């Protein structure tokens, strides 16, 4: 079965799917920008500036977009699987990566905030690595959501 994105679905599913996908796309873009800024500092002099950039990106773009993605996910889930008890594998992958990724994102933002305020490069690097792990999990989720294994 080729997935939900390629199929013609009931009209009432389109808006929640759009919100879910758009939120996820903004989330992936924002976290990518933050990870690159935290982990790929060329000049030491740029450190403070990039730590601030990364923290603000995570706080003001990534966190809100995570909530938009999650709200869209719940909405489309209630329409598509509202009455069923057994979820397919790809839904399980989506839920796990959403929740664990959200927790990692929160930890990453806290680390980035402290690193930005106190100019701690080690903590900034830790924030970048944690956010990169969340990003990798979400790439797996994108694959699962579209290819729908199981």
């Amino acid at each position, binding site marked *: *079965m*080729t*997935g939900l*994105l*390629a*199929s*013609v679905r009931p009209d009432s599913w*389109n808006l929640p*799917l*759009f919100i879910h*996908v*758009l939120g*996820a*796309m*903004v989330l*992936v*873009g*924002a976290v*990518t*920008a933050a990870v*690159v*800024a935290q982990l*790929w*500092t*060329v*000049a030491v*002099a*740029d450190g403070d*500036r*990039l730590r601030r*950039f990364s923290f*603000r*990106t995570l706080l003001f*773009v990534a966190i809100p977009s995570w909530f938009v993605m999650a709200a869209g996910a719940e909405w489309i889930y209630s329409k598509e699987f509202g009455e069923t008890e057994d979820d397919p594998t790809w839904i399980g992958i989506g839920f796990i990566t959403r929740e664990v990724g959200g927790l990692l994102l929160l930890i990453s933002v806290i680390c980035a905030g402290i690193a930005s305020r106190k100019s701690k490069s080690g903590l900034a690097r830790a924030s970048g690595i944690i956010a990169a792990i969340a990003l990798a999990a979400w*790439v797996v989720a*994108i*694959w699962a*959501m*579209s*290819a*729908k*294994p199981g």
Partner: protein
Amino acid sequence: MGFDDWILSLHVLSAFALVGAEVIFWIMIVSLWGTDSTGRVASLMRVSQVGTVLVSVGSVGTIVFGVWLAISLDAYKLWDGWVIAAIILWAIAVELGRRGGQGYGAAGMEAQRLAQAGTETSPVVAETFRASRAFQFHTVSSVLILLLLIDMIWKPGA
């Protein structure tokens, strides 16, 4: 999982790369809005390089795998209205995005060169990082990509 499922997955991953890159560029534009500091612009060049790679991969991937799916899947035809609309939106968005990127790229290179030479401000940078032609191209390109996403999800006429 069938072969078409893998192609759809690559198509969607490409779309995430494309829109993700647009988001990266928007974050940079907002962050650098109104600046004339060469150092501030130069420090974000690595981020913009990653955005450039993502937008290239995303642009090519969406169209190649998208056309592949339109040909491969029985439910759709390449000449369906929403598929033609998507191809036109994609072509205009990519071209406008390329033009916007040229403007920002030139200002970024200039900022990097001046920052290395010890010059702290630049009128070219100040001109570019506000409502410049590059900004207008980027804005229209982003709106078209949003319409493209709406077209992909709603599939009008399908």
